[in-house]
């Protein structure tokens, strides 16, 4: 990110062509309370400095005062768009420490809710990316569909956004009757809308002109900056923890890792990052279908939940594939029911750091698109 340069009088007089613009924290396109200090030469961006911390809630420090069960609601609030996926690595880390073997049915429920939430997350990502480009209508089509997913998760967990559904060793509640049909309907609707959005937005000539060949992130830079998720896969690197380090029951499903192929523009540009998300929705649909077919009918989801969570001394790091990339939790336990230290590897935070690298030399309007294509959630960036 570089050191923070302050605009001083001397500087601006020397270089009067350039203008410093403050984008955010109250800007319609910063997806939250991000502040970007942008230096533009006319319309060309010459420098971007992100300023973080407007949503800082001391999550990691706060966790040291909470017992392991109480941390889960706070984890929901990191990446609030995909809360289900957030809870998973944390719960898995504790299970690893406690050496709990999770029942089969629970694993399948986890896969399904995580993939449902992945679809919901990507819907928002693609929708807001379209809105950054000026297309408002796809946004509402996606939100209409997201409603169905949210309703399923609400019936499962009781909440619409911050689920608190995962428990160490199980789930908070079992699935409801009719869950399978609801999921299959969602899958059908997601596919239908995606086909429509492909025509309406993604293959629209103006949209291609706007997003293709913009914000090119080469695989080397992406790996150097530790980017992950669709941002990395948009650059053509087929890295997905679900396949590379299969956790839970992911090794039982047949799915592909979509990568940016450069059908339009070049590999690693905004268009390719975006299309990866659309294809991932399809892959998630496939996983959901397979998981629904394989899921055992019976099984107590609460059977393995320990009464009181008390970790042995030691440390654990567990990461899973969040919709936005690798999400990891590092927990140091001192033997009590509260963690000694808790560290989250926030995907959005890591992915955001690549912004200054890939947005220089493009136009100001492109910067907004690049930011949108990285798909950050400020709750996770600032924590």
């Amino acid at each position, binding site marked *: 990110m570089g050191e923070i340069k302050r605009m001083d009088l001397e500087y601006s007089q020397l270089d009067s062509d350039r203008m410093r613009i403050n984008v955010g924290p109250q800007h319609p396109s910063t997806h939250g309370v991000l502040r970007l200090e942008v230096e533009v030469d006319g319309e060309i961006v010459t420098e971007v400095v992100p300023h973080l911390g407007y949503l800082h809630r001391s999550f990691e420090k706060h966790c040291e005062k909470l017992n392991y069960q109480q941390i889960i*609601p706070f984890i929901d609030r990191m990446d609030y768009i995909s809360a289900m996926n957030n809870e998973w690595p944390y719960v898995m880390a504790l299970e690893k420490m406690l050496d709990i073997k999770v029942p089969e049915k629970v694993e399948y429920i986890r896969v399904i809710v995580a993939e449902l939430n992945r679809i919901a997350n990507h819907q928002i990502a693609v929708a807001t990316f379209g809105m950054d480009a000026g297309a408002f209508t796809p946004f509402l089509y996606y939100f209409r569909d997201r409603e169905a997913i949210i309703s399923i998760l609400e019936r499962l967990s009781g909440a619409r956004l*911050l689920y*608190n559904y995962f428990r160490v060793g199980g789930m908070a509640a079992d699935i409801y009757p009719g869950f399978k049909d609801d999921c299959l309907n969602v899958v059908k609707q997601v596919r239908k809308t995606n086909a429509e959005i492909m*025509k309406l*937005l993604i293959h629209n000539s103006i949209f291609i002109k706007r997003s293709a060949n913009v914000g090119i992130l080469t695989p080397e830079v992406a790996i150097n900056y530790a980017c992950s998720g669709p941002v990395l896969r948009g650059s053509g690197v087929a890295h997905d923890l679900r396949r590379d380090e299969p956790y839970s029951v992911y090794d039982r499903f047949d799915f592909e890792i979509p990568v940016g192929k450069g059908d339009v523009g070049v590999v690693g540009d905004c268009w390719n990052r975006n299309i990866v998300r659309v294809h991932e929705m399809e892959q998630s649909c496939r996983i959901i279908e397979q998981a629904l077919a394989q899921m055992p009918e019976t099984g107590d989801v609460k059977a393995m939940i320990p009464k009181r969570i008390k970790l042995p001394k030691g440390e654990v790091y567990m990461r899973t594939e969040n919709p936005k990339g690798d999400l990891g939790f590092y927990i140091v336990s001192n033997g009590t029911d509260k963690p000694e230290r808790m560290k989250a590897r926030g995907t959005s935070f890591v992915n955001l750091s690549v912004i200054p690298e890939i947005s220089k030399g493009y136009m100001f309007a492109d910067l907004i698109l690049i930011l949108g294509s990285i798909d950050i959630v400020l709750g996770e960036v600032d924590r």
Partner: protein
Amino acid sequence: MFEYFKNIWSGFTTALHGMAITSSHIFAKSVTIQYPDEKLTLPSNARNRLQLEMSRCNACNSCAVACPVNCITVEGTRVSPDDPQQDVHWDGKPRKMWVTRYEIDFAKCCFCGLCQSACPTDAIKHTVEYEYSEYDRNKLLYKFQTLSPAEAEEKKRLLAEFRAKEKEKECSSTAGKAHEAKE
């Protein structure tokens, strides 16, 4: 040159495709819910306003411990056997604890549902009621105790009296016992 015209053509046709799609939605059924008039039915496990069933609560403090944001305050006092007012729980068992104070600050509540799962008697529950916003934050401090402060003081006093009497009795009984033993 060919590329130039192809670009123009694709720009034109994709725009028309888009317009065809948007126009096809004009006559589709709207998904809007006219909120105050019509409401979505929430699932029965939806986590909204907390409700405490006093006949089940025995002031065990589990919910207050489980709450990650400390929005629940519970205080209780043992029921004195001498108390003229005796109460029973919902299942007919006699009440052992008076709940002298049970407050939930809904301005703090994060609707995680942990209190609900911690409660041994299913007294505290999330309900589907969600329309309870207030202009004054103090009005969000919900008091569930049925006893008035004066009554609570009275119960405490009764218990203290009872305990004092117990002690006295114990003393006298031990003295009596010692006396008996002597005999």
